[in-house]
């Protein structure tokens, strides 16, 4: 009873160029069948294409720098997005300024591409504070580690926006592993019931830590979950940024029009280990990774852009310089970042400190003074 779904990789790039206008993906009809490749118009100007590339290239640089900072001890741990830049950047590129993003620990580069300051962004991993940025400033929720939980937050925000008649959209990411959690199901189903303007982007990167997709579910595609709750689902080549953008854009537009949620499955691959603390050699072969390295989303997009004459060496040099500057900033501000005053831990439990917290703060204060004296 298995339906095998071919995800075209090399073949699913933009179909014509520079009159770039089509991307290939598969729709999941409401009754659940994976449809055939269904080209939707993607209309991006050369400027936009360059922006998209720039974000992907910068993302790659940020990711590499973060891994290095982890090796050097400046970050406690890091979950790399190497190889998933198209899925993440292509998705957030489809959002408007007022839209909201609900990322997980995996979507550092998508969150970076959405505009969050990279130093603030990495606070979770540097251990200086759980969430280092202001969610209201960026309209981005904290990077969330309890899997699938943030999907419900996105649905709730979208429901609220609908109640307030605000034409905004909430986009949330989760993984092929997180899709097994009960919360993922409740989020998809509730979004359907309320017609909430939310887009679920599942990055199916083949693994949940060590557990391969085939041990995660028997479904041939996570996009099929959409059928189970009566919402549209799309499966897309997650290493083709244009396809991702096109699919997510379609979903975002649909949500903004008032036509409800969509589940987009972006099929991609986690080229690095789960996090810097993980060891892939225990559970997968290098060969497998090599195959996917050949479908590198950044290189692939660059190839298409070069071919179409959209980018030139000057532009690429500029992007590279910007990447180096960003990396330098990361090193500057994440190395030996100050710990901050530990007494602050009492300040944000409630809007105001309670009597008990005052007592405990005084105790810590005393401990800190005693330590200073020693």
């Amino acid at each position, binding site marked *: 009873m298995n339906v095998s779904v071919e995800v075209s990789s090399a073949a699913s790039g933009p179909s014509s160029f520079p009159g770039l206008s089509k991307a290939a993906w598969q729709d999941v009809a409401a009754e659940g069948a994976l449809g055939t490749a269904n080209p939707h118009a993607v209309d991006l100007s050369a400027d936009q294409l360059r922006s998209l590339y720039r974000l992907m290239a910068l993302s790659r640089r940020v990711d590499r720098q973060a891994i290095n900072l982890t090796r050097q001890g400046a970050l406690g741990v890091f979950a790399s997005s190497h190889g998933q830049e198209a899925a993440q950047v292509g998705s957030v590129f489809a959002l408007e300024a007022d839209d*909201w993003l609900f990322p997980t620990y995996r979507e550092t580069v998508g969150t970076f591409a959405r505009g969050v300051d990279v130093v603030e962004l990495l606070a979770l991993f540097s251990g200086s*504070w*759980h*969430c*280092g940025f*202001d*969610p*209201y400033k960026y309209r981005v*929720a*904290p990077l969330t580690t*309890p899997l699938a*939980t943030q*999907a*419900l*937050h*996105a*649905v*709730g*925000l*979208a*429901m*609220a*926006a609908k*109640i*307030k008649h605000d034409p905004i959209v*909430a986009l949330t990411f989760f993984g092929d592993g997180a899709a097994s959690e*009960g*919360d993922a199901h*409740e*989020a998809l*189903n*509730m979004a359907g*019931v309320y017609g909430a303007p939310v887009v679920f982007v599942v990055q199916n990167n083949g693994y949940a830590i060590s557990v391969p997709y085939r041990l995660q579910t028997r479904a041939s595609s996570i996009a099929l979950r959409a059928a189970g709750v009566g919402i549209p689902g799309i499966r897309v080549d997650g290493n083709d940024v244009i396809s991702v953008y096109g699919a997510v854009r379609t979903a975002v537009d649909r949500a903004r029009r008032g036509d409800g949620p969509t589940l987009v499955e972006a099929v991609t691959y986690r080229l690095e280990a789960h996090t810097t603390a993980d060891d892939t050699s225990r559970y997968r072969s290098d060969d497998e990774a090599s195959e996917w390295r050949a479908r590198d989303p950044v290189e692939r997009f660059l190839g298409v852009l070069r071919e179409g004459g959209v980018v030139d060496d000057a532009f690429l040099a500029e992007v590279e310089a910007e990447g180096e500057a960003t990396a330098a900033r990361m090193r500057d501000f994440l190395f030996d970042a100050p710990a901050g005053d530990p007494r*602050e*831990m009492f*300040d*944000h*439990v*409630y*809007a105001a400190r*309670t*009597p*008990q*917290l005052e007592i405990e703060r005084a105790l810590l204060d005393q401990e800190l003074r005693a330590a200073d004296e020693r």
Partner: protein
Amino acid sequence: MAGALNAALRDSMRDDDTVVVYGEDVGRLGGVFRITDGLQAEMGADRCFDTPVAEAGIAGTAIGMALYGLRPVVEMQFDGFSYPALNQVISHVAKYRNRTRGRVGLPMVIRIPYGGGIGAVEHHSESPEAYYAHTAGLTVVSPGTPADAYALLRASIAFDDPVIFLEPKRRYWLKEDLELPVTAPPIGEAIVRREGTTATVIAYGPMVTTALEAATRAVGESGWDLEVVDVRTLSPVDMDTLVASASKTGRALVVHEAVRFVGYGAEIAAELSERAFGYLAAPVLRVTGFDVPYPSAKIERHFLPDADRILDAVARLLEY
């Protein structure tokens, strides 16, 4: 009390159009206990609506709503069915303000009818307050009277942090003449419901009535003059009021339906033992449900603390 809660929801919704009420069967039906009766009809289905059967979903979406500036007031249909939402509550509801360094507070209320005494089937008579009270970042409130039910629910809805609002369901039918609106005691204040000198009985939620009954009986039966303190806000607790009372009487006990072990009463007993150490003529005793899963209807009255059990404990307190 059910009417007072209903009025509190209605008045809050009238006064503040960011207040939305949702949960299982709260719309058309008005809730299985009718606490949301008439709200959908008056306020519209955008402001009061039914959900699929998904408690994590209810709590999780409320987070998103609060993030976007609404004040969701959600219902868990019964105590035992608040557990599927615990992950959202512990991992997110409680932690959001702290995680975001104070930038995002979540003004939301999770209403939970709780406790036993109504002859229900299993999983419908749980007392989960200790789980919530032990979770830093939550505010836990439980009214003992209709007036407090109204006032505390309104205060909880107006509060800028998430409140777990525990409604003593066996007291839904408790009557009190009220001129609404009742003024709200601030969240975080206990109240001495009856002044006395013999010993202090500390109670909250469903046990306030029971404690007052014990105090009334004690006068006639033993001549004891019991002081009854209603905790009202379980977390953060108004320990000063409790310590003052225990120090004054020199003897204290704490009553709750929940099981004893690592229950809410342990906190009160431990803290009073420390803060009123020099004033206590006897240890602080705990009068609680037994350390067993909540029993079936035919024997539940033997599980639940009643005035007799309280008075037995007072006698033991006085033996020291």
